[in-house]
């Protein structure tokens, strides 16, 4: 049985995903996530002793393309979905380097 999921675990995952959760959210999601994990844990009942570990979900291999240039998007199009742009660059809130 896995360790009990704590509210701290949920806060940490939320932080890594840059999600802002209220204390109420944390409580609620801790319960929901724990339920999901318990559900998935049923897989542990399968006997995998003779099975090679799966390293990749895709069974295809060696899908490669030739090194041939294709047209890029016009800059206007590239920037068009951005919340903020100045016509040449994407704009983001100031990044504090070395902070």
């Amino acid at each position, binding site marked *: 049985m896995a360790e009990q999921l704590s509210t701290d675990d949920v806060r940490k995952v939320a932080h890594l995903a840059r999600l802002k959760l209220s204390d109420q959210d944390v409580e609620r999601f801790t319960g929901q996530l724990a339920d999901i994990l318990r559900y998935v844990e049923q897989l542990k009942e399968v006997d995998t002793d003779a099975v090679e570990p799966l*390293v990749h979900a895709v069974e295809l291999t060696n899908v490669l393309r030739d090194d*041939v240039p294709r047209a890029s998007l016009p800059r206007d199009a590239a920037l068009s*979905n951005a919340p903020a742009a100045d016509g040449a660059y*994407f704009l*983001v*809130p100031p990044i504090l380097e070395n902070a």
Partner: protein
Amino acid sequence: MPDVAHTPVIGLEVHVQLLTRTKIFCGCVNRFNPDEPNTQTCPVCLGLPGALPVMNREAFRLSLITAAALECELARFTKWDRKQYYYPDLPKGYQISQYDLPFSEHGALEVTTESGESRRIRIRRVHLEEDAGKNLHDESGRGADSRVDLNRAGTPLLEIVTEPDVRSAAEAKSFLDELHLLLTYLCVSDCNMQEGSLRCDANVNLHLSTGAGDAIATPIVEVKNLNSFRGVEAAVEFEIARQLKEFHETGRKLGDPGVEKETRGWDAQRNVTFAQRGKEEASDYRYFPDPDLAPVTLTDEEIESIRAGLRELPAARRSRYRNDLGLSEYDADVIVRQGERFADYFEETSGICGDAKQAANWVTQDVLREINDRGVEIGDLPVSSQALGALIGRIVDGTITVKSGRELFGLMLDESERNDEHSPDTIDRLIEERGLRIVNDSGALESAIAAAIAASPRAVEDFQAGKQQAIGPLIGKVMRDVKGADAKAVRTLLIEKLKEA
């Protein structure tokens, strides 16, 4: 605190942009183009939903070549993983990298340190990943928005990680110099540090010994932001001194509670490292196999053909020049370090003149000085290897003196355009036109000597009175009269005649 002996323990992580035409997962061109930001992007490298990356065959091929040249084992099966973190230059919110099954591991690069010692630096792994875009920060201090250029996002990037085998700042620089040379010989990267095609991080700490059989070490520091080899050397030098001082002051060591790996930046202006915010733990990257990319497998035959197809590497050239051509270690190194085209020029010259040592003298001195003075590549020098080879050949076979050879070299350099037509014939024509052929005709010499003696009774008198230097003007006159005369022979003959007189 008692005296402690310290051994620097340094591992390097080098990022190299590969010389492909297109990016790693899309058809956008792979070109340094900061003047036209965000003109080389598409749904794949912008990370738009639904876009599918597909591995660039050439990027993978260049990766394999590099790893093979670094003596790495190549994996029969490799896959790509998502390394998840948030930064504005990473549009997908994850970088496609390689985690537990990199395409190559366990290599080595042999380097010669400045003291001439040979060291084998082990390579832990080489993996292939994508580069991020570039953030431009507001430098005005007014807190304006940062700007993001995604032209670089998705550039194929090799990460080369060494074992912590480097033992000094100078050795770190030697390693990078040799790696740089190797990469340029392989033509896998242009290694332009100004443009960021080659970047380096250094992990540094000190193993300390107080002589009591103890094994303690200072906390490990990763120095980031090193974009010149001199920078790496200076940063490592600084870290060694800083860590030693800190240890003496605080006694903090690796393994103490609360001691974690520290990330520091390098300030090239002030020549110091400075503390940066701690990186998220490795496990926080939550790597998992990228379901958008198929794994790549290699057969034994494919691996064999990559190894067999490797061009001659710098180390092999050096030893061939020493062992087969009889060059000194120094000359071999100077030539190989100038790059493959220069080394080829040397080999062609040497092949034509038939004297490798003479050819080495000429290319490491006259030719190297000339291309440095002109600020040109070897291919732009007006004197072709054929011409130089023919010229040196005439020195080797005794037709002209070295001094005349230099005169001819200068003449050919003055030609505005490179003339690959210079053959032994045209060299010979120049020799005749300029009257540079060494005169072995004793009749011509003797009459010139007789004339010189007759014309300068004063000098003759002085010489006979014991003033050795009085012979100088006499030699000069003979040399002027008989072009191509050998000064030593003239002197010997003159002295003979003067003694007879």
